[in-house]
């Protein structure tokens, strides 16, 4: 069984679940205030969560946690007693208490101590809520060794010499009247009795009253019935299972003869019990409701109208290291599969029908395994979003701006590592949204908006990536000011002509900070450039979109996983490179008349009447100096999240396959245009390109002036 240490670990895992339930519950109460409904069961659930955390914490001697949970619990107890009506102010304290509780749990996990007076302050507010309440009286007055409870002895006989001795034998009286149909469908009553006999001691009496005179007997009719007395430790359910196959073909009455239920130590009727029968009936019974349960689920109390427990999720807790090892191995498997394919190809065996079929099956299997393993790592963003709710609360309190926090797509699942690494950048973005995005209440009122601002966090799957957006309904980006600051800081020349979107993106430049004074909140010396580089490290991109007076939206687009991607393996001036399939909209070989020159070195291609700039990857990555003639090349049409498109020119397409992502960040830092690398089937290394970044840094075409010209074409 578990050691104390393992139980401690389980406790903290359980705490996370409880804290989530706590947050959910508090939000539900919030909603209840809005539409003036009050669900006692929700308060109960919230109370239970805090109480359970306290109980566990006490067992592990986490005194600070116990103490605070107790104070919180007292308030909730008063609330569920109906002596404290939840309103916005009360809930604000409760939310902060929940946040602090979560801090204390985290501190307990890391054996740390939470510094500062925050706990004391919240505790004071909590006790302020329950002043003079009846239920809030300390329960110390009942503390004594036995709590005034006199234990009730239970005679348990100890003369149990027989190891297999069971507790009590039930005496069932079964009345069994088969119909003619039972016999015509090939059943045999004696077999049923034999099966019953396996459950315990059996006594069978045949009732022959209905048997007519011999000359009147219809051989196809059923005249007999039986009374069976069975002494067994099995339940009625097991008995009924014996008769399962003749259900509807007989009349069956099963009565438990209570008075005759044999006390322990009665005749050893269990000796005949077949282990196998016992085992199988045990399994079957777990799936069925026993009659006792039906009777028991209706005690006369109000709490029984509790919401049905949400369907039990059968889960296994697995050490993350194991999953990671599995993922690494699957990665190696994918590489190995590529190597194998290459070897077979080199041996000239690929044309052999069977071999290539098996190989394709192998590839599909590897992919299925990989996807299943990824699914293990995938987690919903809900806990992350809940954390952000807290950031909004803190930020709105510190900045004095009221903010409502809305979320969408909480159930979106993303790789665990990505979720973990999103915490910091997202925290920063959310703080920014409240601190810089939303206007102060007076200003909002003047602009004809509601005083309470809105910050919205959404997550969704979009074309093989995860899109996370933080939006506010504030004043939008003050572009004049941003431009001016960028010039002042020497980030751009004063005479630059920038489009709105380009000005907005200046926020991501290192060393940019618009806050005139470093505020307590977002201005912590970390700029949006840090956010951007954190997102880039995850293979993601961040973009910003702002409408004056209406608000700002920041979007993060992320890969679903950090381990594998579907790539198109291409030849770029003799170098093998990989382009993520998810980015490619289509591939084409352009006709000569669709290609138009643009300036000296640049070209655009017309795709369904839309002009798309052509980017020669060979030039971008320095494999050749001037673009190769486009007519000889293949174009990969890629689209950005902001629906800009480019045509990446490559020499040829080799293959489309799954590649294992091997990060370069640790050794090389961020290389513009390169997302990562992979190992190919022949053992060579190929770079995986980031199409959007590549397009943006691709020489003159991305140049501001040229792009403006491009618009006019």
């Amino acid at each position, binding site marked *: 069984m578990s050691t104390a240490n393992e139980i401690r670990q389980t406790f903290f895992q359980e705490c996370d679940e409880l804290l989530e339930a706590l947050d959910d519950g508090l939000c539900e109460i919030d909603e209840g205030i809005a539409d003036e409904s009050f669900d006692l069961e929700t308060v109960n659930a919230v109370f*239970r969560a805090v109480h359970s955390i306290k109980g566990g914490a*006490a067992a592990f001697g986490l005194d600070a946690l116990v103490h605070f949970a107790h104070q919180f619990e007292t308030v909730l107890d008063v609330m569920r007693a109906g002596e404290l009506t939840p309103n916005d102010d009360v809930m604000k304290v409760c939310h902060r208490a929940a946040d602090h509780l979560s801090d204390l749990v985290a501190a307990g996990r890391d054996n740390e101590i939470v510094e500062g007076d925050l706990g004391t302050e919240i505790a004071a507010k909590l006790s302020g809520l329950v002043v003079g309440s009846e239920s809030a009286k300390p329960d110390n007055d009942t503390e004594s060794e036995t709590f*005034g409870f006199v234990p*009730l*002895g239970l005679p348990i006989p100890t003369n149990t010499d027989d190891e297999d001795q069971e507790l009590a034998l039930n005496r069932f009286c079964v009345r069994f009247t088969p119909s003619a149909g039972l016999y015509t469908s090939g059943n045999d009553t004696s077999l049923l009795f034999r099966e019953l006999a396996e459950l315990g001691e059996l006594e069978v009496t045949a009732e022959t009253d209905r048997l007519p005179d011999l000359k009147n007997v219809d051989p196809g009719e059923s005249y007999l019935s039986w009374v069976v007395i069975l002494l067994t430790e099995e339940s009625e359910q097991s008995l009924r299972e014996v008769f399962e196959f003749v259900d509807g073909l007989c009349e069956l009455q099963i009565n438990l003869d*209570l008075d005759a239920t044999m006390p322990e130590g009665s005749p050893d009727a269990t000796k005949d019990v077949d282990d196998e029968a016992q085992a199988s009936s045990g399994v079957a019974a777990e799936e069925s409701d026993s009659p*006792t*349960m039906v009777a028991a689920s209706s*005690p006369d109390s109000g709490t029984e109208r509790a919401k049905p427990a949400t369907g039990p999720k059968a889960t296994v807790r697995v050490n993350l290291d194991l999953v990671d090892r599995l993922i690494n191995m699957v990665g190696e498997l994918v590489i190995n599969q590529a190597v194998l394919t290459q070897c077979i190809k080199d041996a000239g065996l690929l044309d052999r029908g069977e071999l290539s079929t098996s190989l394709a099956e192998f590839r599909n299997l590897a992919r299925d395994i990989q996807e299943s393993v990824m699914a293990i790592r995938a987690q919903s963003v809900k806990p992350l979003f809940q954390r952000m709710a807290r950031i909004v609360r803190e930020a709105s309190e510190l900045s004095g701006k009221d903010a409502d926090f809305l979320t969408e797509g909480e159930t979106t699942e993303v790789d665990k590592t990505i979720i973990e690494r999103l915490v910091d950048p997202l925290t920063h973005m959310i703080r920014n949204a409240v601190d810089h995005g939303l206007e102060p209440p007076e200003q909002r009122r003047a602009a004809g908006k509601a005083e309470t601002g809105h910050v919205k966090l959404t997550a969704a799957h979009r074309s093989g990536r995860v899109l996370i957006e933080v939006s506010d309904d504030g004043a939008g980006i003050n572009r004049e000011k941003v431009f001016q600051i960028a010039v002042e800081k020497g980030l751009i020349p004063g005479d630059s002509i920038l489009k709105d979107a380009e000005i907005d993106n200046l926020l991501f430049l290192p060393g940019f900070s618009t806050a005139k004074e470093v505020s307590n909140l977002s201005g912590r010396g970390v700029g949006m450039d840090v956010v951007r580089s954190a997102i880039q490290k995850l293979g993601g991109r961040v973009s910003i979109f702002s409408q004056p007076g209406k608000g700002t939206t920041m979007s993060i687009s992320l890969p679903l996983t950090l381990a594998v991607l579907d790539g198109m393996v291409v030849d770029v001036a003799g170098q093998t490179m990989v382009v993520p399939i998810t980015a490619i909209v289509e591939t084409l070989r352009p006709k000569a008349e669709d290609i138009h020159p643009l300036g000296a070195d640049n070209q655009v291609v017309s795709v369904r009447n839309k002009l798309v700039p052509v980017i020669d990857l060979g030039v971008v990555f320095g494999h050749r100096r001037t673009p190769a003639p486009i007519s000889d090349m293949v174009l990969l049409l890629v689209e950005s999240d902001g629906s800009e498109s480019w045509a990446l020119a490559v020499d040829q397409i080799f293959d489309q396959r799954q590649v294992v992502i091997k990060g370069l960040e640790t050794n090389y830092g961020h290389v513009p245009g390169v997302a990562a690398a992979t190992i190919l089937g022949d053992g060579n290394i190929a770079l995986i390109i980031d199409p959007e970044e590549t397009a943006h840094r691709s020489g003159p075409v991305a140049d501001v002036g040229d792009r403006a010209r491009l618009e006019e074409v």
Partner: protein
Amino acid sequence: MALRDSLSILVVDDMSTSRSLIIMALEEMGIKKIDFSKDGPSALQSLGQRPAHLVISDYNMPGMDGLHLLHALRQGKTTQKIGFILVSGRVDQKILSTGRQLGMNNFIQKPFTTPQLKNCIQQVVGPL
């Protein structure tokens, strides 16, 4: 043969932490026949299948709390004689008096040590 070898106990708690702690304590006492359920209804179902001498149940559980479980046990013909020890984080006279009325055999407050739990069980079933 000692009582601890034959005594069968069903532990009922929705939190796996508390469940594990109780089970660990019971194992330390040398009790061999230990089973557990995650809530009241499944405890009743389990007892219908495999009777036990003693139920050690948490009070604070969603849906059916410990006292409701006790009530249901006392209603059931085959389960009414099963011993019942209630575990709770708080001492509440209301809980205790309801428990007394329903025929609760003993009560223990969380957190407890193994000797405390052992003492509590022995008060009900005699020396282990």
